[in-house]
């Protein structure tokens, strides 16, 4: 900074003399002293050679509050001081303060209404999807096979590595935790039952559903949402292409087809993971492991897993695509709806899984 950018001021009775350059950088030295400056009646700017708008604002406010006279203005400083006074107007009022209780209650109320609208919207969406399925059944040539195959690849094939790795680890964890507990009864051999039955009935499909919801449910919402933002969906409607048939149905069918396959694959991976742990830690050879698996796992366990899988797939696709269509306005909404798609689909999957657990027990598939 050069010397000409210095700023100082002197108070002489009711006179305030400013010298140098009054800019943002020096504003605090004056603004912090405003209390002591309340007696100033004359502001002398004759030695002030530069002033920015912030400085001019401060001088303007000071002169206005004290009813002070401003003198010694050279042309550059005078112009800016004159201009700035045109922009003096009351500040926008702060929004009214709301008490925390009212705020919480309004929040709960709004969310309840919102949940209701989401449920209605989901049901609506499902209805529209059924209608478009019916149309496609009536005109099978309208089925977009390429799109379905493409979605099957992204939903299923591309998920093989991550789902497999995750399931092997799940199998290892079940076997290991089971062995630790069962060892107390000398019944380590029962960890095979634990791994096998849990994987087939519950965890294989459930963990896959959660992974698919995170991978594909979010992708559905993001893809359809960004197309919505770019008015691509509107363009489709205008051209006469049904977004339901071209976007939602392929994703829906691909999820329904791939979920059982992925779920079964994950189950086998989990069993292999459990088997590996039994072999290495519990010294149960693979032959014993698989012989025992065949003895303890009824075919109904396989059926339980495979019945649930396509329904979970349908749920994930519906929740994801529905949230995609809800995106309006800006990119922030896109992120918000994508998150909601994942949260809703995982929540719905777990709720339905609990229902199925009870249901299958009741019909005797224990």
């Amino acid at each position, binding site marked *: 900074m050069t010397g000409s950018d210095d700023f100082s001021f002197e108070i002489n009775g009711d006179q305030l003399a400013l010298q140098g350059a009054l800019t943002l950088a020096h504003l605090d030295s004056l603004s912090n002293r405003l209390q002591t400056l309340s007696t100033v009646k004359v502001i002398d700017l004759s030695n002030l050679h530069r002033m*920015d708008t912030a400085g001019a604002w401060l001088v303007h406010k000071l002169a206005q509050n004290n009813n002070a006279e401003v003198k010694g203005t050279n042309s550059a400083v005078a112009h800016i001081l004159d201009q700035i006074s045109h922009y003096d107007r009351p500040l926008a009022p702060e929004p009214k303060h709301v008490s925390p209780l009212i705020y919480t209650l309004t929040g709960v109320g709004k969310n309840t209404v919102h949940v209701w609208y989401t449920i209605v919207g989901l049901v609506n969406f499902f209805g529209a999807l059924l209608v478009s399925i019916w149309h496609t059944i009536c005109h099978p040539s309208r089925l977009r096979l390429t799109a379905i195959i493409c979605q099957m690849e992204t939903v299923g094939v591309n998920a093989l590595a991550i789902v497999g790795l995750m399931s092997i680890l799940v199998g290892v964890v079940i076997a290991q935790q089971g062995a630790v507990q069962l060892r107390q009864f000398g019944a380590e051999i029962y960890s095979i039952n634990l791994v096998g039955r849990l994987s087939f009935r519950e965890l294989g499909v459930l963990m896959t559903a959660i992974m698919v919801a995170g991978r594909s449910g979010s992708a559905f919402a993001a893809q359809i949402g960004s197309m919505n933002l770019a008015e691509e969906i509107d363009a489709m409607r205008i051209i006469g292409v049904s977004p339901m048939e071209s976007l939602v149905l392929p994703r829906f069918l691909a999820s329904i087809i791939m979920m059982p396959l992925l779920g079964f694959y994950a189950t086998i991976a989990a069993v292999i993971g459990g088997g590996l742990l039994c072999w290495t830690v519990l010294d149960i050879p693979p032959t014993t492991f698989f012989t025992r698996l065949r003895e303890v796992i009824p075919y109904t366990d396989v059926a339980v897993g495979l019945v649930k899988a396509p329904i979970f797939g349908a749920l994930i696709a519906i929740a994801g695509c529905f949230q995609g269509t809800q995106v309006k306005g800006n990119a922030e909404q896109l992120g918000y709806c994508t998150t909601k798609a994942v949260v809703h689909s995982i929540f719905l999957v777990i709720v339905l899984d609990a229902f199925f657990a009870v249901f299958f027990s009741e019909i005797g598939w224990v």
Partner: protein
Amino acid sequence: MSDSDIIQIRGLKNSFGSQVVHDGVDLDVKRGEILGLVGGSGTGKSVLLRSIIGLQQPVAGSIKVLGHEMIGKDPLTMRMVSRHWGVLFQESALFSTLNITENVKVPLREYYPELGDSLLDQIAGYKIAMTDLPEDVGIKFNSELSGGMRKRAGLARALALDPDLLFLDEPTSGLDPVSADAIDALILGLRKMLGLTVFMITHDLDSLYNICDRVAVLADKKVLAVDTVENLTKLDHPWIKRYFNGPRGRAAAESFEARKTGA
């Protein structure tokens, strides 16, 4: 570098992979002028702007802003220089989680944390007033504003630090002619009041005629010419001819002449 040049670009080269965008760009911006930058789509107008303000690392060349070399600068120099400029991005780039007053206060708070909150509120208030926005805009958020208001609010934030140098990326694009004229008048008014230097990218031929002192033409990876619009129209380059002598160019020229004789 002469004292009157606030930006000096020499031999600038920008490339993305094998695609060369600029090769040997030379450009001077004089203190106190409004310089318009024009060029066809994809000629790298925004890339040039981003190079000057340090968001894009050029491959070769030199860019001096306020006498400081911007290529390979250290963060401290960058901070010192960026205190003296304001940038209005194409989509305004207002922070969506802050209201407009808070948006304007962000640069002030960053560079002058010692200033009190009520003073910052007042400063933000008159900056918003300077850009001809109604006072209740201050408590609104970006998503609640129209396109023209966003441009103005973005301009208010760009002016927060009383900059010497203002960068505008298509300030009138996407606006109706009335709002665009108002933005043009606003830029002229601010230049007169604050002695700003303005570097603006624009496709708006009316803006070029009405407020730009000089216009730089970016084509063939270089700055082909920098001159007043009147002189540019006389140049014998196919793209420049088509740009200024097409139906839109002639309409803008006629309305400019009409305004001049009317005034």
